[in-house]
């Protein structure tokens, strides 16, 4: 089994998995029918992506692991998503800020992953990028609306951006697996995405009359499976059925 490639795929897919799960919590509870539909749709896209990645990972694993085993039967320390995507839906400003701060990265990442020498990954990236560019349009529109909306919404959005900023740097943190995959021409060198990312994010914040935070203190750990306390609770729900009724088909 290609251990590095397997882990690399999980590192990518876990972001979509956990973010999709977070968005799924909101279905039926959005501030309007249109946003409800949009958030559900983004969740749907993300889980679709997760399936493509994990089906590929299962093939690489080459044992009897299925996409569902990979998604739902790992221990809390084995999830590789960045801390950003596991942050809770504190309010709609947080949900949109989290989405935006991830989407800008995700879009840039997929643009590079399309060039992967691994043809399956490049094909998945090619399929996903269309969806993600819609996500990014949606979330950046909401940054603008809330940033340049009312005083209340501006304050809430600024608070959300400030609160989540500490999790942005991790997106560009390279693991050993990442490095190995970059060397093989399979993986994306995320360190190279950083400048463009912050430029793009700042541009949208500017337009939205929001401040780009100046803090240089960042959190990391998700890529090594050291998560915030929020993830554990998310996993209790994500894994509930698979854990409670093991080895069954649904």
């Amino acid at each position: 089994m290609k251990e590095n490639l397997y882990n690399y795929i999980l590192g990518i897919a876990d972001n979509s998995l956990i973010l999709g799960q977070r968005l799924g919590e909101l279905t039926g509870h959005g501030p309007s029918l249109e946003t409800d539909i949009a958030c559900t749709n983004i969740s749907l896209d993300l889980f679709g992506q997760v399936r493509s990645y994990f089906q590929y990972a299962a093939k690489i694993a080459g044992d009897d692991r299925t996409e569902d085993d990979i998604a739902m039967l790992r221990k809390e320390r084995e999830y590789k998503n960045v801390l950003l995507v596991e942050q809770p839906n504190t309010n709609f400003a947080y949900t949109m800020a989290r989405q935006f701060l991830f989407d800008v990265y995700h879009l840039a990442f997929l643009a590079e992953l399309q060039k992967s020498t691994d043809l399956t990954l490049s094909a998945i990236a090619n399929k996903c990028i269309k969806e993600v560019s819609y996500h990014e349009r949606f979330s950046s529109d909401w940054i603008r609306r809330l940033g340049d909306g009312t005083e209340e919404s501006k304050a809430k959005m600024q608070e959300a951006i400030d609160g989540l900023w500490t999790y942005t740097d991790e997106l560009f943190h390279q693991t050993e697996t990442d490095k190995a995959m970059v060397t093989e021409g399979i993986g994306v060198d995320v360190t190279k995405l950083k400048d463009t990312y912050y430029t793009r994010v700042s541009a949208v914040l500017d337009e939205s009359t929001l401040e780009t935070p100046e803090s240089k203190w960042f959190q990391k750990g998700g890529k090594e499976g050291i998560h915030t306390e929020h993830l554990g609770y998310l996993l209790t729900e994500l894994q509930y059925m698979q854990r409670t009724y093991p080895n069954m088909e649904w």
Partner: protein
Amino acid sequence: MSEEQIKNLEEQFEARIARDEKIEPKDWMPEKYRKTHIRQMSQHAHSEIVGMLPEGNWITRAPSLRRKVALLAKVQDEAGHGLYLYSACETLGVSRDELYEQLHSGKAKYSSIFNYPTITWADMGAVGWLVDGAAIINQVPLCNTSYGPYARAMVRVCKEESFHQRQGFEIMMKLANGTPVQKDMAQDALNRWWWPSLMMLGPTDAESIHTEQSMKWKLKRKSNDDLRQQFIDQTVPQAELIGLAIPDPDLKWNEERQSYDFGEINWDEFWQVVKGHGPCNKERMKARVGAWEEGEWVRDAAMAYAEKKQARNKT
């Protein structure tokens, strides 16, 4: 307009409907027609929106990625149905905000079935199979109803609903053919959802109001009891096919009627739930009102932003 003129218009209007012509938003229509349609369509829209909650309840806990994706898509479709139906109401001059207000204040009703809790994964199967199944039986005739926007919305809704119904049945089939614990789960869900699904088709004809007028306007084409019989006759063989037992000791094939006889429905329970005292009425309203109130600042911001943008574009 003189009374005679109005009478004249009314006669022409009824004649159009009798000829199966569609009434469109800009056409003249009797006030009662308008009101009745707003009531029925908005009730239907509210049911879609409230109906997202019992299913939304299992999104984070769906047992497989495939099922999670399907469930998300289904709940999203329901939101979409809500959207068309509220739009159809808007063609009759009532805003979505007004309709929400009616829902949140308890003035407007929604389908009582959504006041039952979804407590196991099998409920996702039972809801799709039985609840969407009963809904389709209610709704298919409405594809030919007299009011154009409603009829067109229903065509789309019914197409998606029957997909959902098959999907629900497939969940049940998988469980029924699964391990003993899965089969038990399926049977238990059927036990809990069967009677409320029968109630979904409305009170017995004796108790039902509005029916005659609605028949004329093609807002209703069969009586509640006929629809219920149709639902039972359609569903019982499906249950047999997957080896589940309908929880009705009085259920029996009637050779003469070529239809199933069935046991007595607990109408006390039906009215308790309709009157707001079902297992989840309060929770459902709390969720809807909560989402609406918590979302107010978001909607205000979106409005303020749109206004600013427009102002900027003008200068």
